[in-house]
């Protein structure tokens, strides 16, 4: 199998694509914040769909989905799922570095709790009781 199909590479790629996708969406949402939208859609971000950042974000999101389907075939879920959930850490870090967002220890601690919590939801089969 060529290196380009290796499972660890695609695990990292998935976390990266999910992170980049959210950063691009945020960028596009900011760029289009004042753009006009039909009144009945004003509670949605439909105006942001005109932003190139958002379209790039959607593209990355679709790529991450295709990549996820590939991972589900190659890697056990109890490995793929916790790795993907690292996006909960990567996205705030990316927002700090690339978008200039600042937050304190309370938000960081809350995010850490969420990540640990997701690890409890999917565990290796041998530690699981009777199959549901």
């Amino acid at each position, binding site marked *: 199998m060529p290196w380009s199909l290796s499972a660890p590479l695609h695990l990292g790629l998935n976390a990266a694509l999910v992170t980049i996708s959210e950063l691009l969406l945020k960028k596009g949402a900011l760029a289009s914040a004042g753009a006009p939208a039909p009144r009945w859609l004003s509670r949605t971000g439909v105006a942001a769909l005109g932003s190139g950042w958002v379209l790039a974000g959607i593209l990355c999101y679709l790529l991450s989905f295709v990549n996820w389907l590939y991972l589900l075939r190659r890697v056990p879920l109890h490995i793929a799922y916790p790795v993907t959930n690292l996006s909960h850490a990567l996205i705030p870090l990316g927002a700090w570095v690339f978008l200039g967002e600042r937050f304190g220890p309370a938000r960081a601690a809350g995010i850490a709790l969420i990540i640990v*919590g997701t690890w409890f939801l999917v565990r290796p089969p041998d530690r699981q009781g009777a199959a549901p």
Partner: protein
Amino acid sequence: MTLVQLGLILLAQVSQVAGQVLLKQGMTRTAGRLSRVAAGTAMLAFWFLAWLKLLQGLDLSYLYPFEGLSLVLLVLASILFLGERLQGSTWMGLALIAAGMVLVGLT
């Protein structure tokens, strides 16, 4: 975070989970397939548009942790609609996620 934003977060996450359940049903059943796939797609589209709206007003590092809500809702849906029974560790995970979201919400 305003009450409207909190409501939109809840609505968006509920429709994301409902949309995924509908798509799952639509792909595995033969009866009513098209209507379920259509309804599921519409709900996911709403989730996405609501997410864009929320991103316009909230920090990404503040909003993204609330994606954890979809996991909580998905587990609740699997109990209510699929009759699944959960282990202690799952409840532990849900409690941690919920506590984390409350903590982020307070910042």
